[in-house]
């Protein structure tokens, strides 16, 4: 039987896959060649933001795996965390659909669908935890 505990653990797995994608994307999308065209400072800010995004994702994975019960209980700090994660992934779905470059999404349609499904799953799970 699929339990809410399992679904939150699964969210941790989805987050791990997104984290992994952050290590594959630089080669696939030619970060190095593209970033060579901009000022050092912009390049460094981009790298720092990438690093912090991975740190955020690792924090979320650890929360799903080790604070599974607390997230489901949705009390105190965990409630705040659930609200934040629901907003974070809900907005990520909108960014994927509305903001990101259509040409790239057409070039990699499978990745586009996979990311959309992953972001939507996370948005639904954390919204459910927030309102449950």
């Amino acid at each position, binding site marked *: 039987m699929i339990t809410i505990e399992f679904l939150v653990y699964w969210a941790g797995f989805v987050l791990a896959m997104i984290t992994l994608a952050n290590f594959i994307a630089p080669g696939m999308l030619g970060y190095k060649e*593209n970033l060579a065209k*901009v000022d050092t*400072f912009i390049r*460094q800010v981009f790298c720092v933001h*990438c690093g912090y995004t991975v*740190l955020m994702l690792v924090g979320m994975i650890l929360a799903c795996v080790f*604070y599974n019960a607390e997230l489901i209980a949705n009390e105190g*700090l965990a409630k705040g*965390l659930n609200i934040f994660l629901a907003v974070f992934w809900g907005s990520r779905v909108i960014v994927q659909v509305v903001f990101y470059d259509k*040409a790239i999404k057409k070039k990699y349609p499978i990745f586009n669908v996979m990311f959309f499904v992953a972001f939507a799953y996370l948005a639904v799970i954390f919204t459910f935890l927030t309102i449950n």
Partner: protein
Amino acid sequence: MNQYLITTIQLAGLGQLVLVLASVAIPKCLQWNEGLAGLRPLLRQMFWTYALYVTGVHIFAGVLSLFAASELLNGSFVSTAVCVLMTVWWGARVMIQFFFFDNSDMPNTLFNKLAEIGLVMLFIFLTGVYTWAVVVNLN
């Protein structure tokens, strides 16, 4: 001692929310739009998305610290973890400022120099506050 730390955490929360407000001016001060013009659209969009998410974490940590400071010190696994995360977050930011950023490309204005000093002081303060909170949670 805890009441003193609670007030300090609330100040840290306020500091992070002020940082969020200041972040609105950063793209203009550092001429991000001009700097990003050479990038292909997807990377430019990712740059803005990542920047917004980092700001989102600052809002989350700021609100939590300002309005739920005592919750951050309740000694639970979650509160300790959040404080550890924020210690790593701001500690890394201090290291990045000193050992990674090359500011020679930054527009050389008095405002930018003063802003940098203010930011570094804030990052050090935030690292100290959350480290202190971790220590209190672990005791």
